[in-house]
């Protein structure tokens, strides 16, 4: 095989042509290199030495340029001899998700060829069964398409005036939502860092979920501070409840408690706030947040459903997690009274007895809707009606 570099210098890209030819020649294969760039023989000798190729310069007869004979030393073949493709072995597609991707695949793109000896990364979530959902790619694509810009999606300039007590109630509700959304941001973020990036679509879903929560925190904060400088109250009971979520080390359980039960319950709450919102901005921020939360719930249901379809033993562990959390929170207040009161005042809209009675009825209906939603999702995950009723009843009074 012959490579004629003509006037091309080795550093200018000539080495790429030589590399390509040597690759085609294979280990121990020879190629001939010619060219007229001054110093080609000097550079080629040095390059061959560094690359482990044998080099021989054959001067031309007077008046004609010489040529080099280069023999492939085989280093490139050796380097990739023990390499592995980062995909399920033997699968039809070269980027099929592996059941147990080795930690040494590290950050490599799924489907890439990984050099042997790549250092192990300290990922904890390395089993497909624990994290994977066939719906992840679709949910991610939907999430990306549904991103909204808080600046333009919310009518921040809308004019309204609320009675002081109702505004105070809205600020308290926003304060509560921010606190809960902060937990919902931290939890997926923590698992992203533990997840083997081989499960790319799951990583992306969790990342966009964290970004959603960041946006929710932003808009809830802006609504809370629209008319007031100070935010509302944060209680021991509320934070104790969220801490049990933040502290949960197991992905499946955290996902179950946060996405299926917590965010599922939150969906009812956000719809409720939208329905009885006293101003268009409050209605708008919760409506947009609810759209995102519905996706988070869908992903939780999807990957847990897939997990349970191959590991039914997970179901009693999920049930135990609810019972354990209930026990942990038994001696805390759960939902802070101020939030409950704020929801009632907002739903009533005034201090009139009849309005308060109606507000109370609406809040009771909300708790009923929340319970019904939880039971529906639990039965979707294969829990019996009786189990679903019991477990839904044990869910934290803090909603999330």
């Amino acid at each position, binding site marked *: 095989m012959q490579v004629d570099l003509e006037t091309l*210098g*080795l*550093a*200018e890209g000539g080495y790429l042509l030589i590399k390509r030819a040597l690759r085609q020649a294979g280990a121990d294969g020879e190629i001939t290199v010619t060219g007229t760039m*001054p*110093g080609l023989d*000097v*550079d080629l*000798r*040095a*390059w061959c*030495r*560094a*690359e*482990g190729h044998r080099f021989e310069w054959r001067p031309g007869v007077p008046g004609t340029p010489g040529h080099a004979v280069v023999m492939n*030393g085989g*280093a490139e073949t*050796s*380097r990739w*001899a*023990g390499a592995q493709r980062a995909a399920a072995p033997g699968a039809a597609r070269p980027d099929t998700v592996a059941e147990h991707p080795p930690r040494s695949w590290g950050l490599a793109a799924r489907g890439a060829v990984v*050099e*042997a*000896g790549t250092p192990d990364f300290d990922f904890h979530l390395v089993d497909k069964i624990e994290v994977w959902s066939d719906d992840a790619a679709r949910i991610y694509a939907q999430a990306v398409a549904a991103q909204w810009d808080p600046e333009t999606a919310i009518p921040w300039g809308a004019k309204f005036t609320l009675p002081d007590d109702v505004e105070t109630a809205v600020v308290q509700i926003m304060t509560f939502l921010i606190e809960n959304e902060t937990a919902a941001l931290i939890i997926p973020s923590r698992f992203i860092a533990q997840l083997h990036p081989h499960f790319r679509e799951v990583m992306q879903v969790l990342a966009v979920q964290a970004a959603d929560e960041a946006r929710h925190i932003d808009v809830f904060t802006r609504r809370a501070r629209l008319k007031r400088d100070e935010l509302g109250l944060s209680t021991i009971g509320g934070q104790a409840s969220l801490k049990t979520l933040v502290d949960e080390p197991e992905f499946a359980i955290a996902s179950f408690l946060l996405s299926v039960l917590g965010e599922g319950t939150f969906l009812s709450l956000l719809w409720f706030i939208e329905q009885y919102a006293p101003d268009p901005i409050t209605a708008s921020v919760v409506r947009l947040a609810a759209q995102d939360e519905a996706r988070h719930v869908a992903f939780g249901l999807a990957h847990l459903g897939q997990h349970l379809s191959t590991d039914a033993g997970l179901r009693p562990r999920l049930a135990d997690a609810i019972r354990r959390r209930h026990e942990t929170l038994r001696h805390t207040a759960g939902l802070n009274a101020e939030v409950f009161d704020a929801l009632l005042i907002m739903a009533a809209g005034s201090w009139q007895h009849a309005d308060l009675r109606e507000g109370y009825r609406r809040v009771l209906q909300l708790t009923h809707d929340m319970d019904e939603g939880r039971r529906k999702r639990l039965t979707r995950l294969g829990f019996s009606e009786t189990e679903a009723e019991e477990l839904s009843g044990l869910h934290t009074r803090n909603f999330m």
Partner: protein
Amino acid sequence: MISRDPLIMGAVAYDAKVVTIWDGFGQYFRKHGLHFDYVLYTNYEAQVAAHLSGHVQVAWNSPLAWLQAERVATSLGRQAEALCMRDTDRDLTSIVLVRADSGINEVADLRQRRVAVGANDSPQATLIPLNYLADSGLTPRRDFEVVLFDYLVGKHGDHIGGERDAVRALVRGEVDAACILDANHLAFTREGTIPSGAARILAQTPPYDHCNFTAFADAPKAQVARFRELLLGMSYADAEVRPLLDLEGLKRWVPGRVEGYAQLASAIERFSTIDGFVQDSVARCR
């Protein structure tokens, strides 16, 4: 029977990566049954002296350090052996660069000019090219001015900095020629130190060899033999050692040979480079 005492190797710390390299190789040696440790020196003269005194049994020597060790050993009736070397230690050349538009077309044109070299003790950037120019009829410092870029003296030119500074001086027009290792021509072209078309190769030395692992004949034979065997057995296909081979700049270890030091030997004799070191070392060891 292999001694329970470790085989201690000396190396010069010309860069922080030396620790990574020898910690890594050390683990490999120990895993394969060779009790091994290493000591780092700040300069080759200290390493050669320590080797002669028996503080280390094997030394990773520059070509100049090899000649220092070999000359002193011979004077003392001891025998030095080059155990093995990198594949990249074989058949290096040095080149003399001039500016493309300089009008210097042959070595004789360097008469009365300024020629940049590397560190005073650099075989590839100073001693071998100056010896080559002397062989070509120009005596350094008499027929042309030698401009030293004395970077990290004692490290025998292991650091690229002196050569890079010499080439920068050439490009800026402060000197008329610069002597560098052939591989650095490609490296400096790639990194832009030599702008495209700015320099031209005036001359190239014949091939010569670079570093080797040196042992004296009175070193523990079984350990030294195992050390050499393990090095020669390392494969670039082995993921455990490949990163270390990459760091040390080789694809495989090859047997040592000493014929490739003839040009450097001629240089040190011509310039009396190591006479003082050899005399002092012989006196100290007697």
